[in-house]
């Protein structure tokens, strides 16, 4: 399942409802990425997507993960629009029979979302607005899967 949302969501509530429907899976891994407020210099974040294209890309990555790690279930939630420090931007939840599969698939999907998913990010801070592009580290993380 994939949701691109322009309003906030409740990670705990999502984790619980996902758990309920993911049946017998022994392990559920999740990751939440939040707006950073390092040294108080970030006052907001704005994200945009390419509607239709962004979803299609994430769906392909999700399908690949389900296949590669034999996932029982997966959920990707990604925010667009305006967010404040501390707010969740992204949440990935994976359910699998064994924990290694759940962890690896969750990690893989986060790498995809960070570097390949079609989102553009603008940060508002002390020195005005600034578009943020991926860090070298993000590309390196992604290369672990190829």
């Amino acid at each position, binding site marked *: 399942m994939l949701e691109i949302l322009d309003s906030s969501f409740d990670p705990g509530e999502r984790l619980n409802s996902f758990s309920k429907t993911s049946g017998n899976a022994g392990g559920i891994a999740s990751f939440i*990425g939040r707006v950073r407020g390092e040294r108080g210099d970030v006052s907001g974040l704005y*994200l*945009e997507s*390419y509607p*239709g*294209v962004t979803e*299609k890309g994430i769906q392909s990555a999700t399908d690949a993960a389900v296949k590669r790690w034999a996932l029982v279930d997966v959920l990707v939630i*990604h925010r667009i629009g305006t967010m404040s420090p501390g707010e969740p*931007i*992204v949440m990935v939840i994976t359910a699998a029979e064994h924990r290694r599969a759940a962890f690896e698939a969750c990690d893989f999907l*986060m790498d995809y*979302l*960070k*570097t*390949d*998913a*079609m*989102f*553009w*990010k*603008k940060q508002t801070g002390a020195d005005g607005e600034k*578009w*943020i*592009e*991926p860090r070298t580290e*993000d590309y390196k993380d992604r290369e672990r899967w190829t």
Partner: protein
Amino acid sequence: MLKVLYFGRLSDLAGRREEQFNLPERITTLSQLKMWLRKNRHLGEALDERYIKTMVNQKLVHEDLTLNGDEEIGFLPPVGGG
């Protein structure tokens, strides 16, 4: 009508996130359109940067191609969510 979408920092340069217009006269290819946008949308050399990708009808294109004038064209800086 052509639909052009500017993402990320390109929308700041172009002063808009999208626009629709008829293919300007004498323009028949993507590369010509880019030249035209460079001048008329204050995009400078932004569209030619190595990291800017182009989508035509929601598919990535890596080479020049002929336009009919009813395409959706997207210009995409490096992406990244989360």
